[in-house]
C-alpha cells in the first residue's frame, strides 16, 4: 500500500522531466491540495467559532436593553429561526420564530418587532433575513450589537398596522356552534397559535362586533391531517373573497383579503365562517 501511496520517488522528483503534467504527477498535487484546503478551512473555522457564539452576558445585556425600551404590544423573533436559545432569556414578550420570516403575516402582528439576529453563526441566513425585513417593515433606530448578537427594532409600515386580533378577542365573539379554543398546533413542523373550532362540526361561525378595520384581514388557515377548508369573512354583511385550502396539501396557508366596500372605521361587525373538519385559523385586521 505504502510504496504506491508515496506517489513517486525522490529521484523522480529531481528529474528534469518532473514538471511534465502527467496524471501521476498531477494526482498527488490534487490530493495534497484537497487536504490542505480542508485543513485550512477547519483551522479557520475553529479559530472563528468562539467569537461567533454569544455568552450569557451578551443575552442578559440584550434583554436589559429590550426591557428598558420595551412597550406593550411588542413582539420578538430570532434569526436564524432555529437559534431559540434567546427565548430562555427573553420573557414576557410574545415570541415568534419562522423560516422565511419576511413572508410571515406575524411579523406585522405586533406594533413593534424586536429581532435578535445572529448573522455570524455558521451558515446563518440572518443577514439576508434582516435585509428582507428592512424592506417589509420600518426599521427603528440603528441595529445594535451585544457581542455576536444583533438587536434590531422594527415598526409596521403605514397602513399595515394590526388594528384587531381575532385570536385575542375569541372570548368576545359569538361562536356558533360550541366553544372554540386557542391552541398551539403543528403545521409543517412549525408552531401555529390558532383558533380551533370544535372537531365535531363541519362549519363554525364567529361574529365579532366593534372591530376596527382600515384595509383588510390577514392570517393563516390550516387543517390538521388531510382535508379541505374554506374561510369566508363578511364585514357588515358584505362578503370578502373566500380563502380556500386545497385538500391533500398538509400545511398552513397564509392569506390576506381586502375588506369589502364598507370604508374604514372602528365599529364593524366581522363574521368569520370556517368550513371543514380539524381546522385551525388565525386572523388579524389591519
Amino acid at each position, binding site marked *: 500500500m505504502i510504496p504506491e501511496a508515496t506517489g513517486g520517488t525522490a529521484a523522480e522528483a529531481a528529474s528534469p522531466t518532473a514538471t511534465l503534467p502527467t496524471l501521476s504527477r498531477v494526482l498527488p498535487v490534487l*490530493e495534497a491540495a484537497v487536504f490542505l484546503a480542508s485543513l485550512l478551512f477547519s483551522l479557520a*473555522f475553529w479559530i472563528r467559532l468562539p467569537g461567533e457564539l454569544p455568552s450569557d452576558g451578551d443575552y442578559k445585556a440584550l434583554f436589559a436593553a429590550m426591557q428598558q425600551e420595551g412597550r406593550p404590544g411588542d413582539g420578538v423573533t430570532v434569526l436564524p429561526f432555529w437559534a431559540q436559545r434567546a427565548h430562555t432569556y427573553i420573557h414576557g414578550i410574545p415570541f415568534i420564530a419562522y423560516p422565511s420570516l419576511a413572508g410571515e403575516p406575524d411579523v406585522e402582528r405586533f406594533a413593534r418587532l424586536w429581532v435578535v439576529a445572529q448573522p455570524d453563526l455558521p451558515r446563518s441566513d440572518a443577514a439576508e433575513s434582516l435585509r428582507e425585513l428592512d424592506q417589509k417593515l420600518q426599521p427603528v433606530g440603528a441595529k445594535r450589537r451585544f457581542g455576536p448578537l444583533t438587536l434590531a427594532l422594527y415598526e409596521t409600515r403605514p397602513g399595515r398596522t394590526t388594528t384587531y386580533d381575532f385570536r385575542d378577542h375569541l372570548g368576545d365573539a359569538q361562536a356558533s356552534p360550541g366553544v372554540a379554543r386557542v*391552541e398551539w398546533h403543528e403545521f409543517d413542523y412549525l408552531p401555529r397559535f390558532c383558533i380551533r373550532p370544535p372537531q365535531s362540526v363541519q362549519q363554525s361561525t364567529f361574529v365579532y362586533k366593534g372591530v376596527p378595520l382600515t384595509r383588510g384581514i390577514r392570517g393563516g388557515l390550516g387543517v390538521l391531517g388531510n382535508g379541505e377548508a374554506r374561510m369566508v369573512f363578511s364585514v357588515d354583511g358584505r362578503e370578502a373573497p373566500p380563502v380556500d385550502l386545497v385538500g391533500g396539501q398538509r400545511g398552513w396557508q397564509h392569506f390576506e383579503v381586502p375588506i369589502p366596500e364598507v370604508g374604514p372605521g372602528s365599529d364593524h361587525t366581522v363574521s368569520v365562517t370556517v368550513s371543514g373538519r380539524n381546522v385551525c385559523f388565525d386572523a388579524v385586521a389591519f
Partner: protein
Amino acid sequence: LNARTQKIIALGAIGVLTFVALLLTEKPVGFTRDESFYFLAADLYTPWYLGLWDNFWHGRILDSFSDSALTRAFSYNTEHPVLMKSLFGLSHWLFFSKLAWLRPAAAYRAPAWALGGLMSVLITLLSRRAKLSWGLTTFAVLCFWLTPRNLYDGHLAAFDMPIAVAWVLVVYAYDRGFQSLRWAVLTGVFFGLALCIKHNAYFYPVAFLIHWLLVFVPKAYREGKLRGVLKSVPRQWGFMALLGPLIFFLHWPYLWPHPIDRLGAYFGFHLHHVNYPWTYLGTVLREPPFPLSYVLVVTALTVPLPLFALMVTGVLRATVALVRQWRTGLDGFTLLVLLNGITPLLLISWPSVPHFGGTKHWLPGMPFLGILAAASLQSIAWTVARLLGRIQWERYVLAALGGLALLCALVGTVHIDGYGDSAYNELAGEGAGAAQLGMQRQFWSNNVSGVLDFLNRTVPRGDRVQFHEVTSGSYQAYLANGMLRPDIGFTLSPNDAHFAAYQYMQEFRDQEFEIWNAFGTDEPVDGLYLDESPNVTVYRRPGF
C-alpha cells in the same frame, strides 16, 4: 525483551489506554433508549448464568436448559443475540454488585470499552500490515477515535461498536487466513462471534466475495477454467459457513427448544424492520426510497473535515493504484482494506435499507477508511515536502499536517462534549450549521443528561417531570447512577407534569406544542443548546 514480547506489550498498552480513555470520558454520555433495554436484558440474563454455575456444581446443569428456564431468562429483547447483553450483565454483576469498582452504568458499559481497546489493537495490526510507520499507525487509531460519533458509540453498552470491532477482527483473521490454517479457522470463529453480536455481520462478507472475484478469479480462470475458479475459493469461507452459524446457534440457548420458530422470529423482525423518521437536509425521511447520497453526505458532514478529506483521497488513491495494477495483479491487502472501508457505507446507501441511527450503521467501515487516510497523509507529506523543495523535511511535514488534522478533530470532540450523537463537522458548520441545513439534531434521547443538573436544582421536592423520549429504564438508570434526584418523578404526559424536558426532533414537534398547550406557555426556562440550536428544552408550568 524480544521483538514479539515488545510487540505484545505495545499492543496491550494501546488497548489499555483506549479502555482507560473511554472510562474517563463516558460519564457525560447519557443513557440511550436502547441502552435502557439492554440494561434490563442484562439484568434478566445474568441470574441464568449464575444459576448455571450453581447447577453445574450441584450436578443439575440440565435444569438450566429447560424450556421454561430459558424462556424465563431470555425471552426479553429477542430481536438481538445475547452475547453482548450477557457480557454487560456479567460485568455489572462483577464490577458493580460484587466489587463496587464502577458505577452501575459504567459496569454495564465496560465490556464495550474492552472491545474498544481491541479496536485500537486491530487498527494498529492492520496499519502495520499496510506497512504504515508507527506514527501513521497512531494517526489511523486516533483518526477513528477522534471522530466524535465513533467515540460516542464506543462509550455505550450497545452493539454498534462491538459489531464494528468484531468485523475488523474477522477481516484481520481473513487476511492472515490466506497463509495460515489456524487463522483460517479463527476467521470462522470470529465470524460466529460477529453473528452473536448483531445481524449486520450477515451482510459484510460481500466484501470478501468482491475481493475474491477481483483478486483470485481472473488468474484462476486463466489457469484452470471453472475448476480453477472453484479451487480458488478461500478456505476461510468454509470455516465461516460452518462455524459462523454453529457458534451463533450455540451461544443462544433460548433458540434451542424451538429453533425454527425463534430463529424465524429473529430474522423476521429484521426483515420487516420499521423505518424511524429521520431528518435529512430539511426533509423528514419516513419511507423508502431514501436518497442514494444519504450516507456519503452524512459522513461528509460528521467526520472531522481534514480526516474526511484524507479518507476521500485515501480511497481514491487506493482505487487509482489498484486500477493501475489491473494487468499485473492486484495488491490483495489494499483491495481488502478498500472494500471493507466502503462496503458498509454502500450497503446502507441502498435506498430500501432503513436510514436512521446517525452513522453507527456504517461504523465498521471507519477503521479501514482511517488506515487509507493515514496512507494518503504520508503521500501528501511527501508531495508537500517535494513542492517545498525540501524532501528531507518530509517527516516534519508529516508530523505537522497530521498533528493539525488531529488537533481539529480533538477540538471538535471536546466541543461536542458528551453529545456525540449530535456531532457535526466544520463543513456542516457544527451544531449551528447542521440546524440551518435541516439535519437530525439527535436521536437516542441521551442528551437529556445536559439538563439534569438544572432539574436537580429547580424541580420542587417530589414533583414530576415529563422526560420526553426518555424511557422509564433510562430514567431509572439516571436515578441509580446518582444523576437525578431520587424524589423527582417520571411521567410521559405533560398533563401530569409541572416540568417537561422536550428533545428536539423534527418528527416530534407536535409534542413540544402539546407541552405549550398543557403548561399554557411557550417560554422555556432552560435547555441544552448546541451552538445555539435547541437540543433539549425545559419548560416549567407557571406557578411551580
